[in-house]
């Protein structure tokens, strides 16, 4: 039971990270590999806000959300928009976002140095809550709560709002969306901003959960994020949520029963299996290619 809950907590962070990944892929058909760098940047900035500026984590989180959104705008403007009309935009976008991620991480190293950073002691409530014989901390509950609220908010946004309609129209057919009077450039920017904002919060929450941030933390979660969005179905928001939780649980139980050295194999084994059996993922709809 304790393991189950731990799996849910870590899984909700994976889901939050992956949902930003899959949002951009589902709507714009681009894989944004700067996303993991945003995750790392936000973790470090979150720690700085708490450790040096003396803010509480509850104030730091909205700031990190905002920072993520700004980074998203930068990513779209610098790494993706210039490539818009190129025939190789797929490959080129991958590489340009990798390059931008390299720049972000280098800047991070400049500001914070190469070492692991931690929140100062007592930054967040560690009070354990007894919960049917299981101990959880307020922090863990908060992580779960924030992740779920953000993901529900996003799902609502995409499904119901005017902006979401624009996003879905672009996902169907960017040219037609433009003809219908949708400002494709603006919706694209906003999509990147939302995606990165979620990735940023995921980074800060992750840092809180393990109480540390390293320069390489983005690369570690990048692979898991990719696994989650494939398993859940590229572009599927509920798929990313369930995929994230499933991965979190699978990892926790793998450590319990198989041994920690094999933990990371779970994600890739699952991923590989899904790609072979059901390439569109558990919740994805297969896109039909036009001749």
């Amino acid at each position, binding site marked *: 039971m304790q393991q189950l809950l731990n799996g849910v907590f870590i899984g909700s962070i994976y889901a939050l990270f992956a949902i930003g990944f899959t949002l951009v*892929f589902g709507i714009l058909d681009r*894989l944004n590999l700067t996303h993991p760098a945003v995750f790392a940047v936000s973790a470090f900035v979150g720690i700085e806000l708490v450790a040096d500026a003396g803010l509480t984590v509850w104030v730091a989180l909205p700031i990190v959300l905002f920072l993520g959104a700004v980074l998203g705008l930068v990513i779209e403007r*610098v*790494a993706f928009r*210039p*490539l818009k009309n*190129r*025939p*190789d935009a*797929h*490959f*080129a976008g*991958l*590489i*340009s976002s*990798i*390059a*931008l*991620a*390299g*720049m972000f*991480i*280098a*800047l991070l*190293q*400049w500001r914070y140095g190469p070492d692991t950073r931690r929140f100062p002691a007592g930054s967040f409530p560690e009070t354990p809550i007894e919960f049917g014989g299981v101990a959880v901390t307020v922090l863990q509950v908060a992580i779960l709560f924030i992740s779920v609220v953000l993901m529900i908010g996003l799902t609502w946004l995409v499904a119901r709002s005017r902006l979401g309609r624009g996003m879905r129209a672009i996902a169907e057919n960017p040219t037609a969306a433009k003809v219908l009077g949708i400002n494709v450039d603006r919706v694209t920017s906003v999509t990147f901003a939302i995606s990165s904002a979620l990735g940023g919060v995921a980074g800060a929450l992750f840092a809180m959960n393990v109480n540390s941030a390293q320069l390489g933390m983005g*690369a570690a979660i*990048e*692979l898991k994020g*990719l*696994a989650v969005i*494939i398993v859940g179905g*590229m572009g599927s928001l509920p798929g990313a949520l369930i995929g994230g939780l499933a991965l979190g649980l699978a990892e926790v139980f793998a450590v319990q029963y198989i041994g920690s*050295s*094999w933990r*990371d*194999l779970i994600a*890739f*084994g699952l*991923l*590989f299996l899904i*790609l*072979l059996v059901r*390439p569109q993922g558990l919740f994805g709809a297969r896109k*039909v*290619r*036009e*001749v």
Partner: protein
Amino acid sequence: MLTDATLTFVALGAIFAYSFYAVLVAGQLSLGQAGFASLAAFTAASLTPRPSEVGEIPALLIAIVIGMVVGSAAAVVLGLPTMHLRGVFLAIATLAFAEAVRILILNQEWTGGAQGMSVPKVLTPGIAWAVLAVVAYWFARMGRSRYGRALEAIREDELAARAMGIDVGRHRLAAFTTAGAVAGLYGVLWAYYVRLIAPEDFGFTAAIDGLVTAVVGGSTMFVGPLLGSGFQTLIPEIQRALGVEAGWIRPFVASALLLIIILFLPGGLASLVRRRIRMPKRRMGTPEQGLQTRSHPAPGELLASLEGLSKEYGGVHAVENVDLELRSGEVVGLIGPNGAGKTTLVNMLSGLIPPTSGLATVLGTQVGRVPVHRVAKAGVSRTFQHSKLFNRLSALENVLVGGHLVSRPTFLRRLLWLPSARRDELAALDHAARCLERVGLYDLAGSRASSLSYGDQRRLEIARALASDPTLLILDEPAAGMNHVEANRLSDLISSLAADGLTILLIEHNVGMVLSTCDRIVVLNFGKVIATGTPDEIAADATVIEAYLGSAEAGTRPTDRTEGSHP
């Protein structure tokens, strides 16, 4: 700055980048090369006898052979189940494989786990560059061979490549296996240079580095990986020589330069090198040697028969119960209002989509039950309603790909510089030039397909389709976007092709042109044949006239999706 170590790393980086180039050329994005290299390195290092026993060079050679075999075998094993994946999906599946390999090796005893395995240092800069030269030579000779062109065609437009008779699955697997072999080679060379190999040497970062190197260098020209590796390896070295301190500035500058290159040099560094465009001599009249020619069935013989052919898309009958016969030497027009199912019908005829029910036999093949390239091989060639040219190739290269089925494979013979390969290539060039000449595009042979005007693109498609020496030529709205004069010239071309013994199925909205060009006309409406007959009969047919005028009334026709929507 150019120490032995730097030189060696440039060569190693380039070889690894070639393993990415091998698949990028065919439009595949794979990150599994790190896994192939890892398997190859550890296997070779543990199986090869020590250099002290057999000598350094023999040990290295044995290791290379083992590594390349392991690498290519791993690629086949991974490739068979994953070759149906495209784009990012293939990248992630192969990445998952590489990660799985890393974790596996990390947890094995014989590999030394996280401590790694120590390997004697045998590789010198000279050997590294010699091996690189061999690899580069391989890809340089591949570029202008039939095989190399087929890979490029698959990258540009997979479906059109299939329709030109290219067995896409086999070619993709071949490219993937080559990537495995080259990655294996890299793994072994790496192992015999760095003294200590660890699973982390072949992790995610290494895979990304290899991909970045290949893309920065450029994946459309064989010098790309070399340029990319030079760039990636030398940038930090130059910074160090300039006194830039270690830490954040070096990776920052390297990343920024990478970004600049990818944004402003679309073809990578190799695009700075001018691509030579071959122009064949205009030699008309002499029949080419080395090309196979098809003998067409005698005029009037049954070529294709459709019986009760239907296609349904989610309840909408795009084509319903069509019976049709095509006889050798005929020029048959297929007309009908928008959404009548014309394109769906020819897509079934050329094997692109399987019928929901009914039977179609074309030139002895059961279309819909065999792969598209087999239908093409039987002698069916086509153009597409929306141009599907190989956009980044020249007009001439497009037509050369069209000649895939009638030209002989040249790659292996080109590696050995056999004169017969040169003869075959020249014959293919001549043949392509002749096809271009026939549609009046000879003077534009060197232009990129995407830079041609719309009308010229339509004609280039015809030239490409002609190049396979088809028995049945299907033209899907060839006159769209042409003016009156051009359409007349096209009509003359069709007549002259028919005089050569080709059977032609012409779909066209320009009814005047169809009436003046065709022997027989089939009219389709709502997926059903509503009339067949000679041009005179059709022109006088009341149902046909009504179908055309009546189609202007809204609400009675099926959705437009049936026209031009395909798998």
